[in-house]
């Protein structure tokens, strides 16, 4: 078991101390119902913050937010933080790096969106409007940690360091996954919803069995929380006490279906307590708050070997994909409202007010984003001819006799086509 570095319970702790002595019923198990070691971990953690396990596991009274919609820093008393829900503002260099990620992320989204419209890209699920979540997810992790993204998390994957051109292989239609997940500790972007959350739990479990320090970030959207694997993943993670941060980007819609048709829970973060883990809600368009909450969640997961659930409220500004028509299910007024809460503009205002962003820095950051966009355009002008015979290569470590036969058949067809034998 991982040693906890949280301070031991202290009798001096005042807040909620009465409740702390009577936790959850986990301390007095019925015969045959012992276990609940994770409950004691939660108990330990909550004690260290001087609050009850329930207060620790339930999200704070309001979602965590540091910046107002204009990007001005709001007073600490209005940030939603409190005992056990403390979120210090990250250091200047981290903030600046995040802004850099936001600018690049927005550029990547818009460039790819344009490439789809030009017919040069098969499909691109854009995260325009969700870039704060995208960037925060990548910057919250250490190099030894793993990320399990979905198909909409291109910007996260690129911010994590995966070569943009390798990421685009799948959207260009060349192969299903263009990068080696082991090279970056980023799994193949998952299309079947929430299935990857269980993979994340397994990676964390294997690391724990070997005594390695690995936190895993498991990403999904609001609609995906309706899937059975969401439940199974959170439950397994809590039961096995593995350091997984479940990061839900609640962008309001699962294609066309609004959150109100997915869940009747007070919030998605409230689901955490049902599994015996802590949940938190954050303003997903507030880069500072997203960074602060994700960094702390990763820290707590690492220190206590426990899972956590973080729900970021955000908005998908563009349609689900190029094949979708979002005017059929939401009105432009709603979209306009969210435009005013744009994460990029808010962060720019905040950093400018803070004196961290001058014109030269802004120029350097834009130039870097432009470079990525240019490389994406360049990649789309070349039409790489995949080798059709590779189709048989990776199905098994060693192709079966049947696959050898089928490979020969296709090779023969290709040869005849080249010779013009096939009209």
């Amino acid at each position, binding site marked *: 078991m991982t040693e906890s570095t949280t301070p031991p319970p202290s009798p001096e702790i005042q807040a909620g101390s009465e409740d702390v002595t009577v936790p959850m019923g986990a301390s007095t198990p019925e015969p045959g119902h012992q276990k609940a070691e994770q409950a004691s971990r939660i108990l330990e953690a909550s004690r260290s913050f001087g609050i009850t396990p329930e207060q620790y596991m339930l999200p704070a009274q309001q979602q965590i937010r540091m910046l107002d919609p204009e990007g001005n820093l709001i007073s600490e008393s209005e940030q939603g933080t409190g005992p056990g829900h403390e979120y210090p503002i990250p250091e200047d260099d981290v903030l600046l790096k995040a802004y850099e990620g936001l600018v690049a992320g927005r550029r990547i989204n818009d460039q790819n969106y344009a490439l789809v419209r030009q017919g040069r890209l098969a499909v691109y699920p854009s995260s325009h409007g969700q870039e704060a979540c995208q960037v925060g997810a990548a910057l919250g992790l250490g190099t030894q940690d*793993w990320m399990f993204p979905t198909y909409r998390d291109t910007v996260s994957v690129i911010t994590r360091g995966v070569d943009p051109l390798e990421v685009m292989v799948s959207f260009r239609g060349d*192969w*299903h*996954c263009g990068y*080696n*997940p*082991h090279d970056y500790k980023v*799994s*193949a972007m998952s299309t*079947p919803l929430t*299935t990857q*959350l*269980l*993979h*994340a*739990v*397994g*990676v*964390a*479990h*294997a*690391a724990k*069995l*070997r005594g390695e320090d*690995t936190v*895993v970030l498991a990403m999904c959207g609001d609609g995906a929380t309706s899937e*059975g*694997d969401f439940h*199974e*993943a959170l*439950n*397994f993670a809590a*039961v096995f006490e593995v350091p997984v941060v479940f990061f839900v980007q609640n962008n309001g819609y699962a294609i066309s279906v609004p959150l109100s048709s997915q869940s009747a829970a007070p919030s998605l973060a409230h689901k955490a307590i049902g599994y015996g883990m802590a949940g938190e809600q954050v303003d997903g368009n507030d880069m500072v708050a997203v960074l602060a909450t994700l960094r702390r969640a990763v820290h707590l997961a690492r220190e206590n070997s426990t899972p956590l659930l973080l729900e970021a409220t955000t908005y998908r500004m563009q349609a689900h994909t190029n094949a979708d028509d979002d005017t059929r299910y939401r009105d432009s007024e709603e979209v306009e409202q969210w435009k005013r809460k744009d994460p990029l503009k808010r962060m720019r205002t905040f950093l400018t007010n803070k004196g961290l962003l001058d014109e030269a820095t802004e120029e350097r950051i834009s130039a870097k984003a432009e470079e990525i966009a240019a490389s994406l355009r360049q990649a789309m002008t070349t039409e790489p001819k995949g080798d059709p015979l*590779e189709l048989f*290569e*990776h*199905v*098994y*470590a*060693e*192709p*079966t*006799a*049947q696959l050898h036969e089928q490979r020969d058949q296709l090779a023969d067809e290709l040869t005849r086509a080249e010779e013009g034998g096939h009209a």
Partner: protein
Amino acid sequence: MSATTATKSTTTSFASALNTAMSDAMENDPSVVVFGEDVGTLGGVFRITDGLTKRFGENRCFDTPLAESGIAGTAVGMAINGMRPVIEMQFDAFAYPSLEQIFSHIAKMANRTRGNVRLPIVIRIPYGGGVGGVEHHCDSSEAYYAHTPGLKVFTPATVADAYLMLREAIDSEDPVVFFEPKKLYWSKEAEDLSELRAEYESGTSSRRIGAEANAQIVREGTDVSIISYGPSVSTALKAAEATAEDGISAEVLDLRSIVPFDDAALQATVEKTGRAVVVAEAQGFASVASEITARIQERCFHSLSSPVLRVTGFDIPYPAPKLEEHHLPDVDRILDTLDELQWED
């Protein structure tokens, strides 16, 4: 069954062969972990994992929450992160909640990532009927998995194969769905586990499945080939014995591995005898038996003296225990089918 078994003084059960295969693999390789429902303290509802937790500790063999997709899905992550999970599905039909994980990820991950992420997972599934099991406990579900590219599908019919094939499955870089005929769990044969261990660990076993599949002739004959696998092999052998009394010499082929598939062995036996009957418990429509029949027709057409016939379960949901005898292929139904092979010419 084979000539070599006669010399063995020790008898071994199918269940203990499986159990020893797992413990030997765990002993040799610390990345092998066993998990599933009730596999820890209880040792599994069939006791196949009996003693593994006690011997290797709770980090190596452990119970999971009761959720099959969770078992299969976390196995994916474990395998991504360097482990070799051997997971147990408690019964054939209880594996269905895990099918999305198996079909969409376990089967496809290596291909999706161009071989960069291989998932050496073994999914053990007790399957088939003949044990008086109630609904959802007796399905022959092999066709679903065999139809899914990227999975290997093994099913042993002998005690020796229970050991050798499970060892090979655990060592495979590809995911293997390992079908254990539950009616064989308590069967015993004259086999010595230490000899089987030596055979496997020598690396030169002639019984390796490998990439070519390596189906085995378990009874030689000249007049007709009975092709079978898993729980039906023993029924096929009994039918072959019975038909010998009528002067018909039946050869019995035990496929052992459905994926990969041994076309060469299939072709050799059918070309030799000129007649073929395929026997399998599963319902026949769109089944593994259909596939075998099609392959015989494609490859051996000019050697055939009669149509290829199948003896399978009926196309019905698995019957209640008191009616299952009418559903399962038995010796009489195989003999009836053999009679239909246009012997008069």
